[in-house]
């Protein structure tokens, strides 16, 4: 038996896992070979040293933690052994979770609501709307030119619609016939009417600007559209 074979089996030999003829052969070799015997002695001492290591004491804190863990797990296990118990435990856990969620929110929520109501109550008297000024000139958009006063005219067609061009000073400067016809005699009359009529100029963001006014003549009666 070679030394290498014996060395490979020494560990098992030490643990009494080599039996029968093989054990006898190893024993004979060990009796003859001083090096292998020394190797076995070293391994044996090492094993005794390992076995002789004092067992580490479990720290007191760990013991307590383990007891708490066991108690908790046992309670959990007992609470979930059957379906009704499991459902009850689940409901209790959900209630606890909701309570834990809501409890930190309850005070801020109530405080916020109360503050909002108080502030609203204090501010309500100052929130009254002021009556708007009726004659206030609207700004911020376009206002069309309007006819304030029309001069007497003798236009007596069935229906004539004229568009008058009013400048920023409120003077009609030109016209165009939109419907009906205007005879040369009526043109002079229309020009006079334009000259003597009064207009309010159109405005754009409060500034007077050019605009148009539609004037409809219907026999004697006239209708102004602006």
């Amino acid at each position: 038996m070679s030394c290498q074979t014996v060395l490979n089996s020494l560990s098992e030999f030490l643990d009494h896992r080599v039996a029968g003829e093989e054990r006898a052969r190893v024993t004979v070799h060990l009796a003859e070979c001083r090096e292998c015997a020394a190797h076995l002695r070293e391994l044996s001492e090492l094993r005794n040293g390992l076995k002789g290591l004092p067992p580490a004491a479990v720290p007191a804190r760990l013991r307590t933690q383990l007891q708490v863990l066991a108690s908790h797990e046992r309670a959990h296990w007992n609470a979930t052994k059957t379906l009704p118990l499991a459902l009850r435990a689940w409901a209790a856990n959900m209630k606890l979770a909701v309570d834990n969620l809501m409890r930190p929110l309850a005070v801020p929520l109530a405080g916020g609501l109360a503050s909002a109501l108080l502030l609203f109550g204090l501010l309500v008297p100052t929130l009254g709307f002021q009556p708007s000024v009726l004659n206030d000139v609207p700004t911020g958009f376009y206002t069309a030119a309007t006819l304030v006063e029309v001069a007497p005219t003798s236009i007596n067609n069935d229906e004539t619609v004229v568009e008058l061009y009013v400048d920023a000073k409120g003077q009609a400067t030109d016209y165009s016939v939109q419907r009906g016809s205007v005879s040369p005699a009526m043109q002079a009359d229309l020009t006079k009417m334009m000259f003597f009529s009064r207009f309010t100029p159109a405005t754009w963001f409060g500034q007077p600007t050019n605009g148009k006014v539609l004037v409809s003549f219907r026999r004697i009666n006239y209708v102004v559209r602006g």
Partner: protein
Amino acid sequence: MATAILDLNAQKTAVTDSEDLALVRSLREGSERAYETLLLRFQQPVYNLALRLLNDPSDASDVVQEVFLKVFRNVGHFRGQSSLKTWIFRIAINEAHNQRRWFFRHRHREVGIDDEQEDARGRAGTLADASPSPFDYALDREKQAMIEAALTRINPTFRAAVVLRDITDLSYEEIAEVLQVSLGTVKSRILRGREALRHELEMKLQPQPVMNWLPKTAE
């Protein structure tokens, strides 16, 4: 002789298995005494195993808690195919492996502030020793410290096999169950682990080179 030992072991194993099954049954029934019994039986060996594998009391405590948490939560799935001891040790080995992996990934060294944990590593933290004299005590302690230090330096795979065999005192078959490897692998790991330890201790015991102070004479 060997046959007689094996028979005795078989009888002992049968008794332990029946005790284990009774304990597991009581645990499933939620018996308080069963939980206490389980802790009393296994907290010490599991802590010892975790400490020898990790060499850090704080990590060992974490591992022990994880182990018992898993045991309590999975005891309903324990079918008795292996003994309760090997089942718990298997969980402990896996947790220690995870812890070591986590350690190397996240944390290289943290300074502990837990004095009590530090004490547990000292002599006060070990169980009573029957050393006859202070000299023997000191000698033993030195030898133990050397072995403990050597243990931390060998490959963790071999260390686990050696610790399970020589410190936790499991049989080869039980170690194979715990590590979930073949019997041949267990033999190989124990052999290589012991050889590595022997080598480490041999290196430690070799005399250190001495400085030579050569006197110089004035020329």
